[in-house]
């Protein structure tokens, strides 16, 4: 009796509660017709761009990564820019420039229309301020060495020179900037498109902590002043950055978009966002999803060659890897096509040399690592290990990641099969791996390098004995001399010839084993027009149109 009477109570309670919950849920999801971001953006001329991760900052003098570059490209403009389609140098803040006969002095004439988003004109003094800022030791700019081609810039940055007026940049009048270089530099104009050479608005910097303050609010919305085609409108950390069309831009008619939304959606969730119409573009396609997209929506997947190479660094001080024959045997027995076709599958190119093909416009290395297991076995035998007998076991070090592991496992099998040698795999968390590699406490380590500018020098300089990123302990004075000679050479063809020699020498000694050239993969909505194939991953937002 008691029980029966009572049982009605909780049951109705549960029913009421369930009904209420469903009602609330329906109310929440049903009260507005939901447009997708893509539909909304196509109507309002706003691009929704998934960038994969929150940018580490928007101060062009302090950032280092491609994600940060992809946002700041919308917000700033340097003396010159690149054409998105042809990668040719185009006027930016400077409408024209002259080069002295000896190739060391560049004179830039400013575009009178170049203005900050506040309406102030962009002046040569603003550039001088920017150069002094990024080179000031106190700021601790991580990439200040990009300016070292400028006369005395290195000495000023290292604190050996206290007077900025001795650095090779000055403004003879209000619309001219002269930059003197240490020596002729063939890729100087390319360098100027890098964020380290961009101007900053001096009054804004001064108002928010001064020239050398890293901890500053100047890049926050409301404070931000830039000179790019867009200007910072909103920024909520880990949520969204919105850059709105800048009406003060020097050529506002060239900008079709009204704004760009940068969404730092993690790569795992990006694809879902794209398929639900929340993004026009994603930062990448996850390797295990490539096959699905290839079969179901191939037209929405884009692979572009990138200016980057994936390679193994060999510690040339450790036995038996100190023998070039051993290093060559290891390099010759890797079937790179098997790796790119069956492990990576995103259209990566096998790397038979270090410098990506087409770097600097037309550089294609003639030296080539053969895939020749027979020759590899012969070399190993010459080094004293016929059929791998007596070969000591060693480690492949990589930072923890499924992709790196797959490659290492494949190479481990290739070496076992072709050379009869055993290697162990050894993974470490990212920062631990970087420390181990920096301390040269490894046998073979995985590495990757993306060019800072479009010239073979950015790859070949890496193996110079004094380069801080040369982790192989390899030191060849002949190689160093070639790289220095190339830096002085003014004739472009001659210069590339010197690089050819250097690259051949590198492959003869083999301190690094190139494996593949990177590609950028991304999903792109068919409405996006003007996103051109581009080795530098440089996509000016001025070019983009949204055509539903």
């Amino acid at each position, binding site marked *: 009796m*008691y*029980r029966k*009477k*009572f*049982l009605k*109570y*909780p*049951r109705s*309670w*549960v029913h009421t*509660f369930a009904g209420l*919950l469903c009602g609330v*849920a329906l109310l*929440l*999801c049903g009260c507005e017709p*939901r447009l997708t971001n893509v539909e909304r953006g196509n109507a309002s001329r706003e691009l929704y761009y998934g960038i994969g991760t*929150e940018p*580490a*900052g*928007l*101060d062009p003098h*302090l950032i*280092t990564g491609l994600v940060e570059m992809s946002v700041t490209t919308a917000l700033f403009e340097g003396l010159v820019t690149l054409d998105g389609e042809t990668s040719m140098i185009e006027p930016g803040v400077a409408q024209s420039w002259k080069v002295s006969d000896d190739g060391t002095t560049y004179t830039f004439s400013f575009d009178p229309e170049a203005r900050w988003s506040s309406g102030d004109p962009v002046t040569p003094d603003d550039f001088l301020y920017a150069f002094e800022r990024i080179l000031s*030791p*106190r*700021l*601790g*700019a*991580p*990439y*200040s*060495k990009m300016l070292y081609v400028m006369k005395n810039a290195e000495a000023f*940055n290292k604190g050996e020179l206290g007077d900025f007026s001795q650095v090779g940049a000055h403004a003879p009048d209000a619309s001219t900037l002269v930059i003197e270089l240490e020596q002729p530099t063939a890729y100087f104009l390319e360098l100027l498109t890098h964020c380290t050479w961009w101007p900053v608005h001096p009054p804004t910097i001064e108002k928010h902590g001064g020239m050398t303050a*890293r*901890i*500053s609010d*100047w890049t*926050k919305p409301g404070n931000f002043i830039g000179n790019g085609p867009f200007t910072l409108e909103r920024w*909520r*950390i880990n*949520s969204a950055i919105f850059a709105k069309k800048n009406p003060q831009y020097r050529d506002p008619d060239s900008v079709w978009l009204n704004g760009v939304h940068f969404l730092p*959606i*993690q790569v*795992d*969730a990006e694809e*879902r*966002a794209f398929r*639900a119409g*929340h993004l026009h573009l994603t930062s990448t396609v996850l390797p295990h999803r490539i096959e699905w997209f290839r079969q179901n929506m191939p037209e929405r997947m884009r692979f572009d060659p990138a200016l980057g190479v994936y390679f193994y660094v060999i510690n040339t001080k450790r036995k038996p890897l100190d023998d070039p024959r051993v290093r060559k045997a290891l390099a010759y027995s890797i079937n790179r096509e098997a790796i790119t076709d069956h492990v990576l599958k995103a259209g990566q190119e096998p790397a038979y040399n270090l410098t990506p093909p087409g770097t600097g416009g037309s550089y294609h290395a003639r030296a080539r690592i053969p895939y020749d297991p027979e020759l590899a076995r012969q070399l190993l035998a010459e080094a004293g290990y016929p059929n791998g007998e007596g070969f000591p076991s060693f480690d492949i070090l990589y930072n923890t990641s499924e992709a790196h592991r797959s490659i290492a496992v494949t190479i481990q099998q290739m070496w076992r099969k072709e050379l009869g040698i055993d290697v162990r795999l050894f993974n470490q*968390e*990212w*920062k*631990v791996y*970087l*420390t181990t590699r*920096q301390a040269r406490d490894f046998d073979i380590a995985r*590495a990757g*390098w993306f060019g800072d500018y479009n010239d073979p020098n950015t790859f070949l300089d890496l193996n110079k004995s004094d380069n*801080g*990123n040369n982790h192989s302990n390899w030191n060849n004075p002949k190689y160093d001399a070639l790289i220095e000679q190339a830096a002085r050479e003014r004739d472009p063809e001659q210069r590339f010839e010197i690089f050819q020699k250097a690259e051949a020498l590198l492959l003869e000694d083999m301190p690094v084993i190139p494996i593949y050239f990177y590609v950028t993969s991304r999903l792109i909505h068919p409405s996006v027009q003007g996103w051109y194939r581009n080795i530098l991953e440089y996509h000016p937002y001025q070019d983009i149109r949204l055509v539903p």
Partner: protein
Amino acid sequence: MLSHIARRLLQAIPTLWLIATLTFVLLHLAPGGPFDSEKSLSPEARANLEAHYGLDLPLHQQYFVYLKNIIRGDLGPCYTFTGWSVDEIIAQSFPVSLELGALSLLIALGFGIPLGITAALRHGKPTETALMGVAMVGICLPTFVLGPILLLVFSSGLGWFNPLGWSVPGDRVLPSLTLGLFYGAYIARLTRSGMLDTLQNDYIRTARAKGLREGLVVLRHGLRNALYPVVAYLGPAVAGLISGSFIVETIFFIPGLGMFFVNSAFNRDYTLVMGTVLFYAVLIIFFNLLVDLVQMWMNPRTRHD
């Protein structure tokens, strides 16, 4: 009561100091630093950077500077995200985590308690077995499985909700369910066993003998004591809901604090790690104190102590 609160707050000070010190030591023991990257910095640039953030000082000095700043409420500049201070990041992200946590808690309690009561009253019947079976599944399903299942059904399948984001009210539903159902399942089990224990007591029999309505007996006399273990569990549960939302935040792209908490350790972002760890420590201490107070209030024997 007041002296109890004062005592607990005083106890919190050495606890927080210990947490701050341990975090500081462990962080500096871990290999790698905030400025290591694929492209290593030149020695000059690194020295400049370390000088800028005071990392060139001897470790014990860094420690004292850090403690002094904490006491002033300044958690320092973030190393990874230049231009942001740790205080700003917490101020922007924590309200989101708090909202997610609060909604999840409501769902957990809203599901857990009624289910637990129903199961207890249907003790030994198939209903109980079924409900506790469902609860067991809820406990066993990790958020990274439940989240995608909910998305598959309600977003891709039925199209009721956005697949990710945190802008419209509807965006709250799936993440809160993902996070809340696990705790709801646990609370259902706790409520059930609490209720079963309580309903055996003499005072329940007395209440019934007085002729009180069964609903009143169960909800007023029974539930208060049955909820005792649930309230005790809420302290760690709330902390877990608010700090453990990293996976849910990642799946649903929610701009909460969990993401910073986890990633800062990978980035060796010293100030952000220490800031978020201390912040969560304060929260956990606060919620445990709150739970203690609620328990004291619920139990007439301790209420008047």
